[in-house]
Protein backbone atom coordinates (compact mmCIF):
# COMPACT_ATOMS: atom_id res chain seq x y z
CA UNK A 1 0.00 0.00 0.00
CA UNK A 2 2.93 2.31 0.60
CA UNK A 3 3.41 2.54 -3.13
CA UNK A 4 0.05 3.97 -4.04
CA UNK A 5 0.33 5.03 -7.65
CA UNK A 6 0.24 8.74 -8.31
CA UNK A 7 -2.71 8.50 -10.71
CA UNK A 8 -4.81 6.70 -8.18
CA UNK A 9 -4.16 9.43 -5.69
CA UNK A 10 -5.11 12.14 -8.14
CA UNK A 11 -8.29 10.38 -9.01
CA UNK A 12 -9.62 10.11 -5.46
CA UNK A 13 -8.65 13.61 -4.53
CA UNK A 14 -10.71 14.80 -7.51
CA UNK A 15 -14.32 15.72 -7.10
CA UNK A 16 -16.69 13.22 -5.60
CA UNK A 17 -19.36 14.12 -8.15
CA UNK A 18 -17.15 13.14 -11.04
CA UNK A 19 -16.65 9.64 -9.65
CA UNK A 20 -20.39 9.18 -9.22
CA UNK A 21 -21.07 10.44 -12.74
CA UNK A 22 -18.45 8.16 -14.19
CA UNK A 23 -20.01 5.04 -12.68
CA UNK A 24 -23.47 6.27 -13.70
CA UNK A 25 -22.33 6.46 -17.29
CA UNK A 26 -21.48 2.77 -17.26
CA UNK A 27 -25.17 1.92 -17.34
CA UNK A 28 -27.01 2.90 -20.49
CA UNK A 29 -30.44 3.07 -18.86
CA UNK A 30 -29.13 5.21 -16.01
CA UNK A 31 -27.46 7.49 -18.54
CA UNK A 32 -30.77 7.92 -20.32
CA UNK A 33 -32.48 8.70 -17.00
CA UNK A 34 -29.81 11.17 -16.05
CA UNK A 35 -29.80 13.00 -19.39
CA UNK A 36 -33.59 13.14 -19.48
CA UNK A 37 -33.81 14.45 -15.92
CA UNK A 38 -31.13 17.07 -16.54
CA UNK A 39 -32.90 18.15 -19.73
CA UNK A 40 -36.20 18.34 -17.88
CA UNK A 41 -34.66 20.45 -15.14
CA UNK A 42 -33.24 22.86 -17.71
CA UNK A 43 -36.59 23.03 -19.52
CA UNK A 44 -38.40 23.60 -16.22
CA UNK A 45 -36.07 26.45 -15.24
CA UNK A 46 -35.98 28.09 -18.69
CA UNK A 47 -39.67 27.54 -19.46
CA UNK A 48 -40.58 31.23 -19.93
CA UNK A 49 -37.65 31.70 -22.30
CA UNK A 50 -37.76 28.56 -24.40
CA UNK A 51 -41.47 27.97 -24.77
CA UNK A 52 -42.40 29.03 -28.34
CA UNK A 53 -45.80 30.50 -27.44
CA UNK A 54 -47.63 31.93 -24.45
CA UNK A 55 -49.21 28.90 -22.71
CA UNK A 56 -52.32 30.95 -21.92
CA UNK A 57 -52.82 32.60 -25.33
CA UNK A 58 -55.99 31.27 -26.94
CA UNK A 59 -56.60 30.82 -30.63
CA UNK A 60 -60.23 29.68 -30.63
CA UNK A 61 -60.80 29.48 -34.38
CA UNK A 62 -58.04 26.90 -34.66
CA UNK A 63 -58.91 24.90 -31.52
CA UNK A 64 -57.99 21.18 -31.47
CA UNK A 65 -55.66 21.71 -34.42
CA UNK A 66 -53.50 18.57 -34.88
CA UNK A 67 -49.68 18.82 -34.83
CA UNK A 68 -48.45 21.05 -37.63
CA UNK A 69 -46.11 23.95 -38.14
CA UNK A 70 -45.68 26.24 -36.15
CA UNK A 71 -47.65 24.41 -33.41
CA UNK A 72 -45.52 21.27 -33.38
CA UNK A 73 -47.76 19.42 -30.91
CA UNK A 74 -50.98 21.04 -32.03
CA UNK A 75 -53.52 23.17 -30.16
CA UNK A 76 -55.86 22.24 -27.30
CA UNK A 77 -59.57 22.82 -26.82
CA UNK A 78 -59.05 26.57 -26.31
CA UNK A 79 -56.53 26.84 -29.09
CA UNK A 80 -53.53 27.02 -26.72
CA UNK A 81 -50.17 25.68 -27.89
CA UNK A 82 -49.74 22.17 -26.39
CA UNK A 83 -45.93 22.22 -26.51
CA UNK A 84 -45.74 25.49 -24.61
CA UNK A 85 -48.15 24.15 -22.01
CA UNK A 86 -46.10 20.95 -21.61
CA UNK A 87 -42.96 23.05 -21.11
CA UNK A 88 -44.61 25.20 -18.46
CA UNK A 89 -46.15 22.07 -16.95
CA UNK A 90 -42.61 20.72 -16.46
CA UNK A 91 -41.93 23.60 -14.06
CA UNK A 92 -44.95 22.67 -11.95
CA UNK A 93 -44.10 18.97 -11.99
CA UNK A 94 -40.47 19.45 -11.03
CA UNK A 95 -41.32 21.95 -8.35
CA UNK A 96 -43.89 19.67 -6.75
CA UNK A 97 -41.68 16.59 -7.09
CA UNK A 98 -38.62 18.24 -5.58
CA UNK A 99 -40.46 19.90 -2.72
CA UNK A 100 -42.34 16.73 -1.82
CA UNK A 101 -39.19 14.61 -1.83
CA UNK A 102 -37.00 17.03 0.10
CA UNK A 103 -39.58 17.71 2.78
CA UNK A 104 -40.51 14.03 3.17
CA UNK A 105 -36.84 13.12 3.31
CA UNK A 106 -36.19 15.72 6.00
CA UNK A 107 -39.04 14.49 8.16
CA UNK A 108 -38.24 10.85 7.40
CA UNK A 109 -34.56 11.20 8.33
CA UNK A 110 -35.28 12.94 11.61
CA UNK A 111 -38.07 10.61 12.68
CA UNK A 112 -36.40 7.43 11.37
CA UNK A 113 -32.96 8.12 12.83
CA UNK A 114 -34.29 9.05 16.26
CA UNK A 115 -36.64 6.10 16.47
CA UNK A 116 -34.03 3.65 15.18
CA UNK A 117 -31.16 4.87 17.32
CA UNK A 118 -32.85 5.49 20.63
CA UNK A 119 -35.47 2.75 20.37
CA UNK A 120 -37.82 2.34 23.32
CA UNK A 121 -40.84 4.57 23.63
CA UNK A 122 -39.55 7.12 21.09
CA UNK A 123 -39.46 4.34 18.52
CA UNK A 124 -42.87 3.10 19.61
CA UNK A 125 -44.52 6.52 19.20
CA UNK A 126 -42.84 7.43 15.90
CA UNK A 127 -43.49 4.12 14.23
CA UNK A 128 -47.11 3.82 15.31
CA UNK A 129 -47.77 7.28 13.87
CA UNK A 130 -46.04 6.18 10.65
CA UNK A 131 -48.12 2.99 10.63
CA UNK A 132 -51.33 5.01 10.88
CA UNK A 133 -50.35 7.00 7.80
CA UNK A 134 -49.27 3.88 5.95
CA UNK A 135 -52.56 2.17 6.74
CA UNK A 136 -54.37 4.49 4.32
CA UNK A 137 -54.00 4.03 0.58
CA UNK A 138 -51.77 7.03 -0.03
CA UNK A 139 -53.54 8.53 -3.04
CA UNK A 140 -56.93 8.22 -1.33
CA UNK A 141 -55.54 9.98 1.75
CA UNK A 142 -54.04 12.70 -0.45
CA UNK A 143 -57.39 13.12 -2.23
CA UNK A 144 -59.11 13.40 1.13
CA UNK A 145 -56.67 16.03 2.36
CA UNK A 146 -56.98 17.99 -0.88
CA UNK A 147 -60.75 17.86 -0.68
CA UNK A 148 -60.56 19.46 2.76
CA UNK A 149 -57.85 22.09 2.22
CA UNK A 150 -58.67 22.97 -1.38
CA UNK A 151 -56.63 22.92 -4.58
CA UNK A 152 -53.34 24.83 -4.86
CA UNK A 153 -49.73 23.93 -5.55
CA UNK A 154 -48.75 24.40 -1.91
CA UNK A 155 -51.57 22.16 -0.77
CA UNK A 156 -50.60 19.48 -3.27
CA UNK A 157 -47.07 19.46 -1.82
CA UNK A 158 -48.41 19.40 1.72
CA UNK A 159 -50.75 16.48 1.16
CA UNK A 160 -48.13 14.46 -0.71
CA UNK A 161 -45.57 15.04 2.06
CA UNK A 162 -48.10 13.82 4.60
CA UNK A 163 -48.56 10.56 2.72
CA UNK A 164 -44.95 9.92 1.73
CA UNK A 165 -42.74 10.70 4.77
CA UNK A 166 -43.49 7.38 6.52
CA UNK A 167 -41.79 5.45 3.70
CA UNK A 168 -38.58 7.39 4.21
CA UNK A 169 -38.85 7.12 7.98
CA UNK A 170 -39.19 3.35 7.80
CA UNK A 171 -36.18 2.88 5.56
CA UNK A 172 -34.02 5.25 7.59
CA UNK A 173 -35.09 3.52 10.79
CA UNK A 174 -34.18 0.05 9.57
CA UNK A 175 -30.87 1.37 8.22
CA UNK A 176 -30.18 2.98 11.57
CA UNK A 177 -30.92 -0.21 13.48
CA UNK A 178 -28.53 -2.17 11.26
CA UNK A 179 -25.87 0.51 11.44
CA UNK A 180 -25.94 1.05 15.16
CA UNK A 181 -24.82 -2.53 15.75
CA UNK A 182 -21.79 -2.11 13.51
CA UNK A 183 -18.29 -2.05 14.91
CA UNK A 184 -17.55 1.46 13.76
CA UNK A 185 -20.41 2.80 15.82
CA UNK A 186 -19.04 1.00 18.88
CA UNK A 187 -15.63 2.36 17.94
CA UNK A 188 -17.06 5.88 17.73
CA UNK A 189 -18.69 5.43 21.13
CA UNK A 190 -15.38 4.14 22.44
CA UNK A 191 -13.85 7.40 21.28
CA UNK A 192 -16.36 9.26 23.40
CA UNK A 193 -18.72 10.47 20.68
CA UNK A 194 -22.18 11.48 21.89
CA UNK A 195 -25.41 10.03 20.54
CA UNK A 196 -26.15 13.19 18.54
CA UNK A 197 -22.67 13.22 17.05
CA UNK A 198 -22.88 9.53 16.11
CA UNK A 199 -26.23 10.09 14.43
CA UNK A 200 -25.00 13.11 12.52
CA UNK A 201 -21.59 11.97 11.37
CA UNK A 202 -21.86 8.20 11.21
CA UNK A 203 -25.41 6.93 11.02
CA UNK A 204 -27.26 9.45 8.83
CA UNK A 205 -24.56 9.69 6.12
CA UNK A 206 -24.44 5.90 5.93
CA UNK A 207 -28.21 5.58 5.90
CA UNK A 208 -28.75 8.14 3.13
CA UNK A 209 -27.36 6.29 0.05
CA UNK A 210 -30.00 3.55 0.18
CA UNK A 211 -32.63 6.28 0.51
CA UNK A 212 -31.38 8.09 -2.58
CA UNK A 213 -32.97 5.49 -4.79
CA UNK A 214 -36.20 5.83 -2.83
CA UNK A 215 -36.03 9.61 -3.19
CA UNK A 216 -35.46 9.41 -6.94
CA UNK A 217 -38.34 6.97 -7.31
CA UNK A 218 -40.27 9.31 -5.02
CA UNK A 219 -39.71 12.16 -7.49
CA UNK A 220 -41.38 10.04 -10.15
CA UNK A 221 -44.31 9.06 -7.99
CA UNK A 222 -44.79 12.60 -6.65
CA UNK A 223 -44.98 13.87 -10.23
CA UNK A 224 -47.43 11.10 -11.02
CA UNK A 225 -49.50 11.85 -7.92
CA UNK A 226 -49.62 15.56 -8.74
CA UNK A 227 -50.81 14.71 -12.23
CA UNK A 228 -53.37 12.35 -10.74
CA UNK A 229 -54.72 14.93 -8.30
CA UNK A 230 -54.84 17.58 -11.02
CA UNK A 231 -56.56 15.11 -13.34
CA UNK A 232 -59.27 14.72 -10.70
CA UNK A 233 -59.54 18.50 -10.35
CA UNK A 234 -58.08 18.38 -6.83
CA UNK A 235 -54.58 19.54 -7.64
CA UNK A 236 -53.40 22.59 -9.44
CA UNK A 237 -56.06 25.08 -10.49
CA UNK A 238 -56.77 25.52 -14.20
CA UNK A 239 -55.75 27.35 -16.29
CA UNK A 240 -52.28 26.71 -14.79
CA UNK A 241 -50.63 24.26 -17.19
CA UNK A 242 -50.27 20.96 -15.35
CA UNK A 243 -49.73 17.66 -17.12
CA UNK A 244 -52.55 16.09 -15.14
CA UNK A 245 -55.01 18.79 -16.18
CA UNK A 246 -53.91 18.40 -19.78
CA UNK A 247 -54.64 14.67 -19.73
CA UNK A 248 -57.99 15.37 -18.11
CA UNK A 249 -59.10 17.91 -20.70
CA UNK A 250 -57.63 15.87 -23.54
CA UNK A 251 -59.72 12.91 -22.43
CA UNK A 252 -62.89 14.70 -23.56
CA UNK A 253 -61.51 15.02 -27.07
CA UNK A 254 -59.73 11.68 -27.26
CA UNK A 255 -61.38 10.74 -30.56
CA UNK A 256 -61.33 14.11 -32.34
CA UNK A 257 -57.92 15.27 -31.10
CA UNK A 258 -55.87 12.36 -29.68
CA UNK A 259 -52.68 14.47 -29.82
CA UNK A 260 -53.63 16.17 -26.54
CA UNK A 261 -53.87 12.98 -24.47
CA UNK A 262 -51.01 11.26 -26.21
CA UNK A 263 -48.50 14.08 -25.76
CA UNK A 264 -49.30 14.78 -22.12
CA UNK A 265 -49.74 11.11 -21.19
CA UNK A 266 -46.50 10.18 -22.87
CA UNK A 267 -44.49 12.86 -21.14
CA UNK A 268 -45.76 11.75 -17.71
CA UNK A 269 -44.84 8.13 -18.49
CA UNK A 270 -41.38 8.92 -19.81
CA UNK A 271 -40.64 11.26 -16.91
CA UNK A 272 -41.58 8.69 -14.27
CA UNK A 273 -39.62 6.02 -16.12
CA UNK A 274 -36.56 8.26 -16.34
CA UNK A 275 -36.60 8.92 -12.61
CA UNK A 276 -36.88 5.19 -11.91
CA UNK A 277 -33.96 4.36 -14.19
CA UNK A 278 -31.88 7.12 -12.66
CA UNK A 279 -32.72 5.89 -9.16
CA UNK A 280 -31.47 2.41 -9.99
CA UNK A 281 -28.28 3.76 -11.51
CA UNK A 282 -27.62 6.04 -8.57
CA UNK A 283 -27.90 3.20 -6.13
CA UNK A 284 -24.93 1.52 -7.72
CA UNK A 285 -22.99 4.70 -8.26
CA UNK A 286 -23.33 6.08 -4.73
CA UNK A 287 -21.95 3.05 -2.96
CA UNK A 288 -18.22 3.71 -2.59
CA UNK A 289 -17.61 0.02 -2.00
CA UNK A 290 -18.75 -0.77 -5.53
CA UNK A 291 -16.45 1.85 -7.01
CA UNK A 292 -13.08 0.23 -7.21
Amino acid at each position, binding site marked *: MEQLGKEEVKETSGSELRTVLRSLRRSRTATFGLIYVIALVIVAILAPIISPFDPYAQDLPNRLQPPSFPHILGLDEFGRDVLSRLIHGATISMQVGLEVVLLSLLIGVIVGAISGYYGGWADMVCMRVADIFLAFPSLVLAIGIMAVIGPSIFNVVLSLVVVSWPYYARVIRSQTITLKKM*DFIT*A*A*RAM*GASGRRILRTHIIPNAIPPVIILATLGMGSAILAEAGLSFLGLGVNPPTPSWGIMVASGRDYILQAPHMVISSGLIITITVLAFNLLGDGLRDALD*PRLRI
Partner: protein
Amino acid sequence: MTLDSDKVLLEVRNLKTYIETSSGLVKAVDDVSFDVRKGEIVGLVGESGCGKTMAALSVMRLLPEPYGKIVGGSIYFDGQDLTKLSEGEMRAIRGSKISIIFQDPLTALNPIMKIGEQIVEAIVSHQQVDKNEARQRAINLLHSVGIPDGKVIANQYPFRISGGMRQRVMIAIALACDPTLLIADEPTTNLDVSIQAQILEVISDIRRKRGISVLLITHNLGLVAWLCDRVFVMYAGKIVEQAPTEALFTNPSHPYTELLLKSVPKLDSPKDKLATIEGEVPNLIMVPKGCRFHLRCPYARECCRAVEPDLVKVGIDHYARCLMQDSRYNVEWK
Protein backbone atom coordinates in the same frame (compact mmCIF):
# COMPACT_ATOMS: atom_id res chain seq x y z
CA MET B 1 10.31 2.92 32.31
CA THR B 2 9.58 6.06 34.24
CA LEU B 3 10.16 6.70 37.92
CA ASP B 4 6.56 6.27 39.00
CA SER B 5 6.33 2.91 37.28
CA ASP B 6 4.87 1.40 40.42
CA LYS B 7 1.89 3.69 40.32
CA VAL B 8 -1.27 1.90 39.38
CA LEU B 9 -3.26 3.45 36.54
CA LEU B 10 -6.08 0.96 36.22
CA GLU B 11 -7.18 -1.30 39.00
CA VAL B 12 -10.03 -3.71 38.44
CA ARG B 13 -11.29 -5.22 41.68
CA ASN B 14 -13.58 -8.24 41.91
CA LEU B 15 -15.30 -7.33 38.68
CA LYS B 16 -18.38 -9.32 37.83
CA THR B 17 -19.92 -8.83 34.42
CA TYR B 18 -22.91 -10.96 33.58
CA ILE B 19 -24.69 -11.23 30.29
CA GLU B 20 -28.29 -12.14 29.96
CA THR B 21 -28.90 -14.56 27.07
CA SER B 22 -31.92 -16.53 25.98
CA SER B 23 -30.35 -19.70 27.37
CA GLY B 24 -29.41 -18.25 30.73
CA LEU B 25 -27.15 -15.89 32.64
CA VAL B 26 -23.58 -15.99 31.34
CA LYS B 27 -21.02 -15.12 33.98
CA ALA B 28 -18.54 -13.82 31.43
CA VAL B 29 -16.35 -12.09 33.99
CA ASP B 30 -16.61 -13.67 37.41
CA ASP B 31 -14.78 -11.97 40.23
CA VAL B 32 -11.81 -10.79 38.21
CA SER B 33 -9.10 -8.50 39.53
CA PHE B 34 -6.22 -7.09 37.57
CA ASP B 35 -4.25 -3.92 37.38
CA VAL B 36 -2.22 -1.93 34.89
CA ARG B 37 0.59 0.30 36.12
CA LYS B 38 1.73 3.48 34.45
CA GLY B 39 3.76 2.92 31.32
CA GLU B 40 3.29 -0.82 31.45
CA ILE B 41 2.08 -3.28 28.82
CA VAL B 42 -0.07 -5.89 30.46
CA GLY B 43 -1.36 -8.96 28.68
CA LEU B 44 -4.76 -10.51 29.31
CA VAL B 45 -4.57 -13.98 27.81
CA GLY B 46 -7.10 -16.70 27.28
CA GLU B 47 -9.01 -18.80 24.80
CA SER B 48 -11.94 -17.46 22.82
CA GLY B 49 -14.99 -17.14 25.02
CA CYS B 50 -13.14 -16.92 28.33
CA GLY B 51 -14.42 -13.42 29.02
CA LYS B 52 -11.42 -11.27 28.19
CA THR B 53 -13.22 -9.05 25.70
CA MET B 54 -16.11 -8.61 28.12
CA ALA B 55 -13.59 -7.52 30.76
CA ALA B 56 -12.25 -4.91 28.35
CA LEU B 57 -15.70 -3.69 27.37
CA SER B 58 -16.57 -3.43 31.07
CA VAL B 59 -13.65 -1.05 31.59
CA MET B 60 -14.95 1.08 28.69
CA ARG B 61 -18.52 0.63 29.93
CA LEU B 62 -19.47 -0.39 26.39
CA LEU B 63 -21.16 -3.69 27.17
CA PRO B 64 -23.85 -4.77 24.70
CA GLU B 65 -27.02 -3.12 25.94
CA PRO B 66 -29.29 -4.05 27.53
CA TYR B 67 -28.04 -7.60 28.06
CA GLY B 68 -24.59 -7.01 29.52
CA LYS B 69 -24.25 -5.59 33.01
CA ILE B 70 -21.55 -4.99 35.56
CA VAL B 71 -23.11 -6.56 38.63
CA GLY B 72 -20.28 -6.17 41.09
CA GLY B 73 -16.79 -4.95 41.77
CA SER B 74 -15.07 -1.72 40.95
CA ILE B 75 -12.86 -0.33 38.21
CA TYR B 76 -10.50 2.32 39.49
CA PHE B 77 -8.93 4.44 36.81
CA ASP B 78 -6.67 7.25 37.99
CA GLY B 79 -8.35 6.99 41.38
CA GLN B 80 -11.88 7.23 39.98
CA ASP B 81 -14.35 4.37 40.10
CA LEU B 82 -15.60 4.05 36.53
CA THR B 83 -18.53 1.86 37.52
CA LYS B 84 -20.00 4.80 39.43
CA LEU B 85 -19.77 7.39 36.67
CA SER B 86 -22.75 8.62 34.69
CA GLU B 87 -22.89 7.95 30.95
CA GLY B 88 -21.97 11.58 30.28
CA GLU B 89 -18.93 11.49 32.59
CA MET B 90 -17.88 8.19 31.06
CA ARG B 91 -18.14 9.69 27.57
CA ALA B 92 -15.64 12.36 28.56
CA ILE B 93 -13.16 9.63 29.53
CA ARG B 94 -13.62 7.40 26.50
CA GLY B 95 -11.22 8.37 23.78
CA SER B 96 -9.57 11.12 25.78
CA LYS B 97 -8.17 9.05 28.67
CA ILE B 98 -8.86 5.46 27.69
CA SER B 99 -8.97 4.28 24.09
CA ILE B 100 -9.65 0.89 22.64
CA ILE B 101 -8.76 -0.72 19.34
CA PHE B 102 -10.72 -3.64 18.05
CA GLN B 103 -9.94 -6.85 16.30
CA ASP B 104 -11.28 -6.06 12.86
CA PRO B 105 -9.99 -2.73 11.63
CA LEU B 106 -12.20 -2.73 8.53
CA THR B 107 -15.54 -2.86 10.27
CA ALA B 108 -14.31 -0.51 12.97
CA LEU B 109 -13.92 2.31 10.45
CA ASN B 110 -16.80 4.23 8.93
CA PRO B 111 -16.86 2.97 5.33
CA ILE B 112 -17.99 6.21 3.72
CA MET B 113 -15.80 8.67 5.57
CA LYS B 114 -12.28 9.54 4.53
CA ILE B 115 -9.63 8.40 6.95
CA GLY B 116 -8.41 11.91 7.70
CA GLU B 117 -11.93 13.02 8.59
CA GLN B 118 -12.34 10.11 10.96
CA ILE B 119 -9.22 11.08 12.86
CA VAL B 120 -10.30 14.73 12.89
CA GLU B 121 -13.66 13.61 14.23
CA ALA B 122 -11.93 11.86 17.14
CA ILE B 123 -9.87 14.97 17.91
CA VAL B 124 -12.71 17.49 17.80
CA SER B 125 -15.05 15.38 19.88
CA HIS B 126 -12.85 16.05 22.92
CA GLN B 127 -10.84 19.13 22.14
CA GLN B 128 -11.61 22.61 20.92
CA VAL B 129 -9.38 22.91 17.89
CA ASP B 130 -10.13 24.29 14.47
CA LYS B 131 -10.40 21.98 11.48
CA ASN B 132 -7.08 22.94 9.94
CA GLU B 133 -5.13 22.30 13.08
CA ALA B 134 -6.98 19.03 13.60
CA ARG B 135 -6.14 17.98 10.06
CA GLN B 136 -2.49 18.72 10.59
CA ARG B 137 -2.54 16.72 13.79
CA ALA B 138 -4.24 13.84 12.00
CA ILE B 139 -1.42 13.74 9.48
CA ASN B 140 1.15 13.85 12.27
CA LEU B 141 -0.64 11.02 14.04
CA LEU B 142 -0.60 8.92 10.89
CA HIS B 143 3.08 9.64 10.68
CA SER B 144 3.65 8.53 14.27
CA VAL B 145 2.02 5.15 13.60
CA GLY B 146 4.32 4.51 10.67
CA ILE B 147 2.38 5.94 7.74
CA PRO B 148 4.83 8.33 6.11
CA ASP B 149 2.37 9.32 3.37
CA GLY B 150 -0.14 10.73 5.86
CA LYS B 151 -1.52 13.34 3.47
CA VAL B 152 -2.33 10.75 0.83
CA ILE B 153 -3.80 8.18 3.17
CA ALA B 154 -5.91 10.80 4.95
CA ASN B 155 -7.70 11.33 1.64
CA GLN B 156 -8.54 7.65 1.16
CA TYR B 157 -11.60 5.67 2.10
CA PRO B 158 -10.97 2.73 4.46
CA PHE B 159 -11.73 0.08 1.84
CA ARG B 160 -8.90 1.33 -0.34
CA ILE B 161 -6.11 0.60 2.11
CA SER B 162 -4.71 -2.69 3.40
CA GLY B 163 -5.55 -4.39 6.66
CA GLY B 164 -2.30 -3.49 8.35
CA MET B 165 -2.72 0.10 7.25
CA ARG B 166 -6.23 0.17 8.66
CA GLN B 167 -5.05 -1.10 12.01
CA ARG B 168 -2.45 1.67 12.06
CA VAL B 169 -5.23 4.13 11.33
CA MET B 170 -7.24 2.68 14.23
CA ILE B 171 -4.24 3.18 16.50
CA ALA B 172 -3.87 6.74 15.23
CA ILE B 173 -7.54 7.39 16.04
CA ALA B 174 -7.10 5.82 19.47
CA LEU B 175 -4.13 8.08 20.14
CA ALA B 176 -5.85 11.21 18.84
CA CYS B 177 -6.49 12.71 22.26
CA ASP B 178 -3.38 11.43 24.04
CA PRO B 179 -5.01 8.80 26.24
CA THR B 180 -3.11 7.36 29.20
CA LEU B 181 -4.44 3.84 28.67
CA LEU B 182 -4.81 1.95 25.41
CA ILE B 183 -6.82 -1.24 25.38
CA ALA B 184 -5.93 -3.40 22.39
CA ASP B 185 -8.44 -6.19 21.86
CA GLU B 186 -6.77 -8.80 19.66
CA PRO B 187 -5.19 -6.08 17.55
CA THR B 188 -3.34 -8.39 15.20
CA THR B 189 -5.59 -11.44 14.95
CA ASN B 190 -6.84 -10.60 11.47
CA LEU B 191 -3.48 -9.64 10.04
CA ASP B 192 -0.65 -11.40 8.25
CA VAL B 193 2.22 -12.48 10.44
CA SER B 194 4.64 -9.98 8.93
CA ILE B 195 2.13 -7.17 9.39
CA GLN B 196 1.47 -8.34 12.96
CA ALA B 197 5.07 -7.68 13.84
CA GLN B 198 4.85 -4.18 12.41
CA ILE B 199 1.72 -3.37 14.41
CA LEU B 200 3.34 -4.67 17.59
CA GLU B 201 6.32 -2.52 16.81
CA VAL B 202 4.00 0.48 16.57
CA ILE B 203 2.39 -0.34 19.92
CA SER B 204 5.70 -0.84 21.66
CA ASP B 205 6.98 2.34 20.05
CA ILE B 206 4.11 4.50 21.29
CA ARG B 207 4.53 3.09 24.78
CA ARG B 208 8.16 4.08 24.68
CA LYS B 209 7.56 7.54 23.25
CA ARG B 210 4.37 8.52 24.99
CA GLY B 211 4.62 6.54 28.22
CA ILE B 212 1.16 5.19 27.56
CA SER B 213 -0.06 2.07 29.36
CA VAL B 214 -1.41 -0.77 27.27
CA LEU B 215 -3.78 -3.56 28.14
CA LEU B 216 -3.24 -6.15 25.44
CA ILE B 217 -5.96 -8.71 25.05
CA THR B 218 -4.88 -11.74 23.09
CA HIS B 219 -4.81 -15.49 22.82
CA ASN B 220 -1.35 -15.41 21.31
CA LEU B 221 1.35 -16.16 23.85
CA GLY B 222 4.13 -15.36 21.41
CA LEU B 223 2.83 -11.85 21.28
CA VAL B 224 2.76 -11.66 25.06
CA ALA B 225 6.33 -12.85 25.41
CA TRP B 226 7.45 -10.25 22.94
CA LEU B 227 5.57 -7.26 24.24
CA CYS B 228 4.20 -7.56 27.77
CA ASP B 229 5.69 -6.74 31.15
CA ARG B 230 3.11 -8.71 33.10
CA VAL B 231 0.49 -11.24 32.16
CA PHE B 232 -2.91 -12.25 33.48
CA VAL B 233 -4.16 -15.60 32.26
CA MET B 234 -7.91 -15.91 32.19
CA TYR B 235 -9.89 -19.10 32.06
CA ALA B 236 -13.68 -19.43 32.07
CA GLY B 237 -14.32 -16.00 33.53
CA LYS B 238 -11.59 -16.13 36.18
CA ILE B 239 -7.95 -15.13 36.43
CA VAL B 240 -6.05 -18.41 36.87
CA GLU B 241 -2.53 -17.08 36.93
CA GLN B 242 -0.81 -13.74 37.03
CA ALA B 243 2.90 -13.14 36.80
CA PRO B 244 5.64 -11.03 35.28
CA THR B 245 6.11 -12.31 31.73
CA GLU B 246 9.53 -13.77 32.46
CA ALA B 247 8.25 -15.75 35.45
CA LEU B 248 5.21 -16.99 33.59
CA PHE B 249 7.26 -18.43 30.78
CA THR B 250 9.99 -19.97 32.95
CA ASN B 251 7.77 -21.19 35.73
CA PRO B 252 4.12 -21.62 34.69
CA SER B 253 2.30 -22.50 37.90
CA HIS B 254 -1.15 -23.32 36.67
CA PRO B 255 -1.70 -26.42 34.52
CA TYR B 256 -3.68 -24.34 32.03
CA THR B 257 -0.80 -21.93 31.49
CA GLU B 258 1.56 -24.84 31.21
CA LEU B 259 -0.56 -26.45 28.51
CA LEU B 260 -1.02 -23.14 26.71
CA LEU B 261 2.75 -22.74 26.56
CA LYS B 262 3.17 -26.28 25.27
CA SER B 263 0.69 -25.67 22.50
CA VAL B 264 2.67 -22.79 21.04
CA PRO B 265 4.51 -24.09 17.98
CA LYS B 266 8.27 -23.68 18.15
CA LEU B 267 10.86 -23.98 15.43
CA ASP B 268 13.17 -26.22 17.42
CA SER B 269 10.57 -28.71 18.60
CA PRO B 270 10.02 -32.01 16.77
CA LYS B 271 7.61 -31.65 13.89
CA ASP B 272 5.25 -34.46 14.80
CA LYS B 273 2.26 -33.36 16.74
CA LEU B 274 1.45 -30.07 18.40
CA ALA B 275 0.21 -30.35 21.96
CA THR B 276 -3.42 -29.38 22.38
CA ILE B 277 -5.61 -28.90 25.39
CA GLU B 278 -8.31 -31.55 25.34
CA GLY B 279 -11.91 -30.45 25.64
CA GLU B 280 -13.24 -26.94 25.41
CA VAL B 281 -13.90 -23.90 27.54
CA PRO B 282 -16.78 -24.76 29.87
CA ASN B 283 -20.16 -23.29 29.28
CA LEU B 284 -20.24 -20.14 31.37
CA ILE B 285 -23.90 -20.64 32.19
CA MET B 286 -23.24 -23.95 33.97
CA VAL B 287 -19.77 -23.50 35.40
CA PRO B 288 -18.29 -26.78 36.69
CA LYS B 289 -18.06 -27.14 40.46
CA GLY B 290 -14.67 -26.97 42.10
CA CYS B 291 -11.77 -25.88 39.93
CA ARG B 292 -13.09 -24.69 36.56
CA PHE B 293 -10.26 -26.40 34.76
CA HIS B 294 -10.52 -29.82 36.38
CA LEU B 295 -12.36 -31.40 33.43
CA ARG B 296 -9.40 -30.71 31.16
CA CYS B 297 -6.58 -30.83 33.67
CA PRO B 298 -4.13 -33.76 33.41
CA TYR B 299 -3.31 -33.50 37.13
CA ALA B 300 -6.88 -33.27 38.42
CA ARG B 301 -7.52 -35.11 41.66
CA GLU B 302 -10.59 -35.74 43.78
CA CYS B 303 -10.22 -32.50 45.71
CA CYS B 304 -10.22 -30.45 42.48
CA ARG B 305 -13.78 -31.50 41.80
CA ALA B 306 -14.99 -30.20 45.14
CA VAL B 307 -12.92 -27.20 46.13
CA GLU B 308 -12.74 -23.96 44.22
CA PRO B 309 -9.10 -22.87 44.51
CA ASP B 310 -7.97 -19.41 45.60
CA LEU B 311 -5.17 -17.39 44.09
CA VAL B 312 -2.02 -18.52 45.85
CA LYS B 313 1.26 -16.66 45.87
CA VAL B 314 3.98 -18.66 44.16
CA GLY B 315 6.66 -16.01 43.67
CA ILE B 316 7.28 -12.30 43.47
CA ASP B 317 4.18 -10.78 41.94
CA HIS B 318 3.26 -14.30 40.83
CA TYR B 319 -0.04 -15.93 41.74
CA ALA B 320 -1.84 -19.05 40.57
CA ARG B 321 -5.32 -20.38 41.19
CA CYS B 322 -4.48 -24.06 41.65
CA LEU B 323 -4.68 -26.45 44.55
CA MET B 324 -1.25 -27.83 43.57
CA GLN B 325 0.23 -24.58 44.77
CA ASP B 326 -1.80 -24.59 47.94
CA SER B 327 0.14 -26.13 50.81
CA ARG B 328 -3.12 -27.13 52.53
CA TYR B 329 -3.75 -29.79 49.91
CA ASN B 330 -1.00 -32.27 50.36
CA VAL B 331 -1.90 -34.77 47.71
CA GLU B 332 0.33 -36.83 45.45
CA TRP B 333 0.13 -34.67 42.28
CA LYS B 334 2.24 -35.79 39.34
